[in-house]
């Protein structure tokens, strides 16, 4: 068979699978978003109502805006904190040696942990009676001794952010260690010989070299933060009230608990829009290598 035909045949099965499992649902979700779309009402999935679901979300549903706010704040905090802490940890671990490479190996473990289980484990750690972190924070900062973390909206939010940061630091750290390894040593040494302080070397030599890797990490983490569902579901289930209800959780709740498939599809599509921009930005970095 000629290569010219073969090359298309080889990708065909993969393209079919990706289309059927990822592209088709996107299109179908778009269609559903323009219907009445009630799970318990037969025929409503083909009953078109124009943009009504979207205008409903925008103008009639404070809960939608609440989840937008929660997701935005959550993304901002988790991306910022994870990146900063991971950068610090990567600088600490990059030089290598026994202790440091052992630490790098251990960092794989939280990555392999199911996010749902991370949620469970943090609910455990912040249990008011026998949670280890609860006891720790109470000892270090007495006003927090008697609080019930997950019952307080702000503190519950803080716990959800902590669980996310905890779960993602290892991955970001390992990526950044890889990035640091590609910073040329002689440039760093030359700057040190010239008498530049540690901070100057970091700011003027290391950081600019690390730029692209840092950008990749921030985009990727933003995407995963925006999508967050598993930990939130297991940790707080969006509560107390709707204090930790992310967009994914809001969509799940409306679609599955209230059976409003049409409405939740419209919110889901609103969520896809920022993803398109982020994916575009990410793709630029992937193909820059090509």
């Amino acid at each position, binding site marked *: 068979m000629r290569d010219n035909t073969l090359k298309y045949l080889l990708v065909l099965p993969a393209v079919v699978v990706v289309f059927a499992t990822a592209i088709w649902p996107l299109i179908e979700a778009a269609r559903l978003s323009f219907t009445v779309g009630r799970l318990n009402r037969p025929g409503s999935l083909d009953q078109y109502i124009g943009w009504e679901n979207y205008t409903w979300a925008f103008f009639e549903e404070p809960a939608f805006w609440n989840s937008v706010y929660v997701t935005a704040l959550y993304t901002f905090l988790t991306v910022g904190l994870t990146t900063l802490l991971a950068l610090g940890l990567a600088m600490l671990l990059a030089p290598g040696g026994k202790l440091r490479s052992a630490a790098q190996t251990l960092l794989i473990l939280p990555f392999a942990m199911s996010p*749902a289980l991370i949620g469970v484990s943090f609910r*455990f750690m912040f249990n008011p009676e026998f949670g280890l972190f609860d006891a720790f924070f109470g000892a270090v900062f007495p006003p927090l001794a008697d609080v019930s973390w997950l019952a307080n909206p702000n503190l519950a939010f803080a716990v959800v952010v902590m669980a996310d940061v905890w779960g993602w630091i290892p991955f970001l750290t390992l990526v950044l260690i890889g990035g640091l390894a590609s910073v040329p040593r002689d440039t760093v040494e030359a700057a040190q010989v010239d008498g530049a302080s540690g901070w100057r070397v970091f700011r003027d030599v290391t950081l600019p070299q690390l730029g692209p890797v840092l950008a990749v*990490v921030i985009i990727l983490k933003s995407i995963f933060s925006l999508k967050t569902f598993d930990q939130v579901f297991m940790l707080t289930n969006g509560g107390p009230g709707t204090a930790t209800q992310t967009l994914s959780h809001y969509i799940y709740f409306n679609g599955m608990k209230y059976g409003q498939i049409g409405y*939740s*599809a419209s919110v889901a599509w609103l969520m896809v829009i920022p993803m398109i921009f982020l*994916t575009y930005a990410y793709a630029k970095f992937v193909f820059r290598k090509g």
Partner: protein
Amino acid sequence: MTGKQKKQFWNLIQTTLILIAMFIMLVPIIWIFLAAFKTHVDVYQLKLFFTPTLENFATVFDDPYRLGEKLVNSTIVALVSVVIAIPIATLAAYSFSRFSMRGETMMLVIILATQFVPAVVIILPFFVMFRDIGLLDTRLGLILVNLAIVMPFAIWMIKGFIDGIPMDTEEAAMVDGSSRLQVIRNIVLPMAAPGLVTSAIFCFIIAWNEFLFALILTNKNAVTLPIGLALFKGEEGDLWNLLSAAGIIIMAPMFVLALMIRKYFVQGMTMGAVR
């Protein structure tokens, strides 16, 4: 302080920071490991020393929890997803790596993009469709939907590995009269084997830990391990010793697998943007 003392002091600070960081990273995991061996009395106290018991592991596999069934479901779903995804992805990855096609970049970007679509968007239409054709709460349904997340990863990861294999052996074999398919089977597959195994393990971990699809699509027969965690809510709240035992069953095998592929997981997770 002399220069040498200063350096020693600085080293000591760094070592301490590393140890603290590792402690924070490991403590939630260690705590689960400890709790899994505690009795239901000990688990409700901040105890470090206790008489370990294996009872929790027996209980979670027993009625009414029957975690064994979930374990079987998780294993089958993850395994079959990988077995379907890897061969299909390998063929596509080879083609993307070795040939240039019309719209190739576009295809690769779309495959990458599907990875970033929120799972909750994908699952809504599948829920409706599966309800209509009777695939709700089946392992088959779960496997099909899992392909949506596993396949793009596999294509990108395997492409990365094949990109790294030099083309000259292939070209020499072609000159000697081998067909393209023979080249793929006899030269590329053996050389890419470690990469394929790595990708398979990577996808297995992702499918194993998948939560949202299983939460929405299953309720009894096809429930997987992460969803099984929800079983351990008693009338007096969470049954932490049982939750922890189930947690170990979920995470311990993944720890072993992840350690096997630790060198590659950065590349895998970034879909080749960072190598």
